[in-house]
């Protein structure tokens, strides 16, 4: 077999060559796949985020993910309808979740009331803490003024917590409050 003959001549060189060729081929194949899928993946991620924005902001026809302003290190997304400003959204993260970080997206209108809250990412217990993703639950924040400090019922607030999972709702309240403060500052500007 030719392979064995070449090995007898100079084994290390041959091994290195084979390894190099294989790695090169693999790298090329992966790079091609990456080039082909890169844009599609970016588009999927953008679609997801836009979906979230649509859920929390008043109806808009611009691209809030592209039109945004910076405030205190946060990106505030501006929503416009027919050129007129209708609302803003911001995404905040809290580390006080049961299973770690919870990221929420909060939207408000120009009257400084919350129009929507959506949980983008979380690691809460399925079946227990993950009820925070239910629209029926996040709907509790809608209509609240940006100046209001949200808290769970156990902390003298009016946000419903579910028995056995106070930590998750409390963390979301925390994230929403931070977001509300940012949005308030923006609406003043």
């Amino acid at each position: 077999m030719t392979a064995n003959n070449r090995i007898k001549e100079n084994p290390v060189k041959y091994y290195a060559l084979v390894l190099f060729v294989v790695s090169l081929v693999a790298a090329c194949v992966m790079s091609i796949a990456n080039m082909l899928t890169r844009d599609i993946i970016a588009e999927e991620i953008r679609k997801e985020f836009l979906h979230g924005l649509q859920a929390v902001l008043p109806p808009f026809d611009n691209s809030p993910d592209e039109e945004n302003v910076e405030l205190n290190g946060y990106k505030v997304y501006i929503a416009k309808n027919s050129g007129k400003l209708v609302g803003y959204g911001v995404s905040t993260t809290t580390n006080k979740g049961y299973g770690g970080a919870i990221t929420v997206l909060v939207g408000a209108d120009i009257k400084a009331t919350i129009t929507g809250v959506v949980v983008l990412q979380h690691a809460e217990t399925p079946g227990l803490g993950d009820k925070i993703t239910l629209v029926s639950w996040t709907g509790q924040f809608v209509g609240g003024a940006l100046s209001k400090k949200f808290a769970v019922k156990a902390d003298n607030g009016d946000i419903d917590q579910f028995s056995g999972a106070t930590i998750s709702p409390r963390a979301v309240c925390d994230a929403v409050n931070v977001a509300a403060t940012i949005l308030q500052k923006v609406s003043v500007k």
Partner: protein
Amino acid sequence: MEYIMLFISSSLVNNFILIRFLGICPFMGVSRSINVSVSISLAIMFVMTASSSATWLVYRLVLVPLGIQFMQTVVFILIIASLVQFVEMAIEKTSPQMHVALGIYLPLIATNCAVLGIALINAQDNRGFLEMLVFTIGSAAGMGVAQVLFAGIRERVSFSDVPQAFKGMPIAFISAGILAIAFMGFAGLVK
């Protein structure tokens, strides 16, 4: 203080084996005796820490700047495989005894979901180097605890009268399930 919380959370609350399901192969295959479990756990801890450090550095310093994050799986696997090869040679030279004892397990450690898994997790999270180390060592320690506990349980179970259909692996899985329930009790330990 935060590091202690991180350690507890990575070793117990989010136990690699019983909650995250990484590292099951050695867990099920090797944990029949407590002694072997301890050795394997230490070996895995060493490999995980060394490979996570190496892969973390390569990810931050090479892959991200060049924008080739998609190559991470290949690069990480090669780093891990080389590292284990190196460790195996080192053990062979320094302690032939240990080499004979652990010999068959070393390839198992290299191609272990836990080792590659933690490298990938560390690459995604935005942790600093020291945090990453604490997380990795904590996770490995948690794996060790789970393994030793499980080995103890299995030693006991081997003396029990187990129904024929359940002998061997099935009862081991069910015991692991009960152990996992116990570990769920740790949730809430880190506020």
